[in-house]
């Protein structure tokens, strides 16, 4: 192949190696340097060196070891220069010794140190001291192997904004001396929750993408799933991690059917279930089973996953196990009470026990301030009133809902339903 082609081919291979190895390389370097910002910079320098040298020398047998060794050499140079400038010779001697003595055993596959380091990296990238959007950008950078440009395209944000977010995040972590460690005891639950929230945020950003968007956007679902699966192997005894993975696998199973050919959203009950990805559903159900083998109470992600699983198991909407969904929503409402969850529970109750039972619960939400401009509240109420034959009231509610929604198709649907009430009175 021509020189240019060969160059391009090596470039793509370097990118592939980067996606596979960058997380672990950065994690290992963070342990050595105790500074995640510096670690990432060093890893990036090694990447540049790879792009320059590998087209000539060929891809090394152990690319991760090459990248780490190159980064370490830069670190040593850096420390030498710094120590000479600041006259800290003893400190230099100690740091150099530490660097040089680390085992070069990136060859051994089941290296526990690397696993631990990767987990520490997850926790530091998702640290609650950072703003949420910074945590997402940093996680995708350090663990997802995405470039700043890719992250920018994925989040529909200008590239310099993302770059700044990442720079500031690294500075905050350094200034606040955030330790490179796995949290212990009671802190672990909260910090894990923060990490799961970041991963789910990334997933939802991708989930809200539509055809015609930059392909990086729906790609975020894949990135989030990969991060979730990685975390599940790093913390296999945490049921909520399996719960989140299950939720994402099952939601991702509907990617083909969520949006119609005109780019408009399709409701769950109108989706063509034959096109749901059974492989992903199977993976989601397996992840739920895995969570169940761990003897612990069910958390919010697992509960949401179980609700999604109820829909996934039903071959047609009429086969949905509504009583089970009611129980799951009740459990979820106790853990993370919210008016929206209560509304969803009301819908499930109406499907399981009839519109009257559902209406009672919906009416209790009438004065809920956070739902005042939420179009689904009057929409649900209208549907229940319609089923009870109270068409005049239903019409009013459909019109109210139509006025509140920003979605043209949904507005038209609601107005059509309002008009149909007029006819049958």
């Amino acid at each position, binding site marked *: 192949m021509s020189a240019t082609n060969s160059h391009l081919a090596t470039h*793509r291979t370097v990118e*592939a190696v980067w996606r596979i190895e960058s997380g672990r390389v950065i994690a290992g370097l963070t342990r050595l340097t105790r500074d995640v910002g510096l670690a990432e910079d060093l890893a990036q320098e090694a990447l540049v060196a790879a792009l320059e040298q590998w087209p000539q020398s060929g891809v090394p047998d152990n690319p991760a070891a090459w990248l780490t060794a190159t980064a370490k050499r830069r670190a040593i140079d850096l420390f030498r220069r710094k120590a000479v400038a600041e006259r800290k010779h003893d400190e230099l001697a100690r740091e150099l010794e530490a660097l040089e003595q680390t085992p070069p055993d990136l060859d051994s596959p089941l290296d526990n140190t690397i696993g631990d380091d990767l987990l520490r990296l997850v926790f530091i990238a998702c640290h609650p001291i950072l703003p949420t959007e910074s945590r997402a950008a940093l996680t995708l950078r350090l663990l997802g192997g995405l470039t700043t440009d890719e992250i920018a395209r994925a989040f529909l944000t200008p590239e310099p904004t993302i770059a700044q977010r990442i720079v500031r995040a690294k500075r905050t972590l350094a200034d606040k001396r955030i330790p490179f460690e796995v949290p212990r005891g009671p802190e672990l639950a909260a910090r894990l929750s923060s990490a799961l929230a970041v991963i789910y945020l990334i997933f939802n950003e991708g989930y809200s993408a539509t055809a*015609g968007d930059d392909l990086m956007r729906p790609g975020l679902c894949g990135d989030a799933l990969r991060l979730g699966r990685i975390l599940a192997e790093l913390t296999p005894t945490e049921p909520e991690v399996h719960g989140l993975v299950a939720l994402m696998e099952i939601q991702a199973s509907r990617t*083909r059917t969520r949006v119609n050919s005109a780019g408009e959203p399709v409701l769950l009950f109108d989706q063509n279930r034959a096109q749901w990805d059974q492989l992903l559903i199977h993976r989601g159900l397996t992840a739920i089973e895995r969570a169940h083998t761990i003897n612990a109470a069910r958390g919010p992600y697992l509960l949401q996953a179980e609700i999604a699983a109820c829909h996934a198991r039903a071959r047609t909407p009429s086969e949905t196990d509504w009583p089970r969904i009611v129980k799951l929503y009740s459990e979820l409402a106790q853990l993370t009470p919210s008016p929206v969850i209560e509304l969803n529970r009301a819908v499930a109750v109406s499907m399981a026990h009839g519109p009257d039972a559902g209406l009672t619960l919906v009416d209790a939400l009438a004065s809920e301030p956070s739902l005042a401009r939420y179009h689904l509240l009057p929409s649900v109420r209208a549907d229940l009133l319609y089923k009870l034959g109270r068409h005049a009231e239903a019409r009013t509610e459909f019109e109210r809902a139509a006025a509140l929604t920003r*979605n043209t198709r949904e507005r038209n649907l609601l107005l059509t339903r309002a008009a149909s009430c007029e006819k049958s009175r």
Partner: protein
Amino acid sequence: MRFMVIVKSTPESEKAGALPDPQLMAEMGKFNEELIKAGIVLAMDGLQPSSKGARVKFSGKSRTVVDGPFTEAKELVAGFWIWQVKSLEEAIEWVKRCPNPHNVDSEIEIRQVFEMEDFAPILSEEEIKYKVAKRAELPNQATAR
């Protein structure tokens, strides 16, 4: 992107009752663990020798059943993975790390899986603009979708 990664058979692996070398199994086990830890495996399975299988030949309206075993061992499938990675190069890099699945020279083939995006029609500029505008109207995630 999804890829099916196919381990081809060898005359040895095709032998009825052939059990894989424990050393090979241990190494392959470690490799599978690495893949799972990397979050890229969607599915994987091993296939039994072709003596336990069959072929159906199609010619016009006729269907002919042929029982295994089949002779061209190196063209047969011994096992497969389905991986989720971002490029063919990434799949290749992972396969390079795989231990030899057999005790003799062997082959692993990588094939890209068709996904819905491959079947999507080419959109016009207007259609793309329309879809992008529709994105702003997507309803709240709280509805079961």
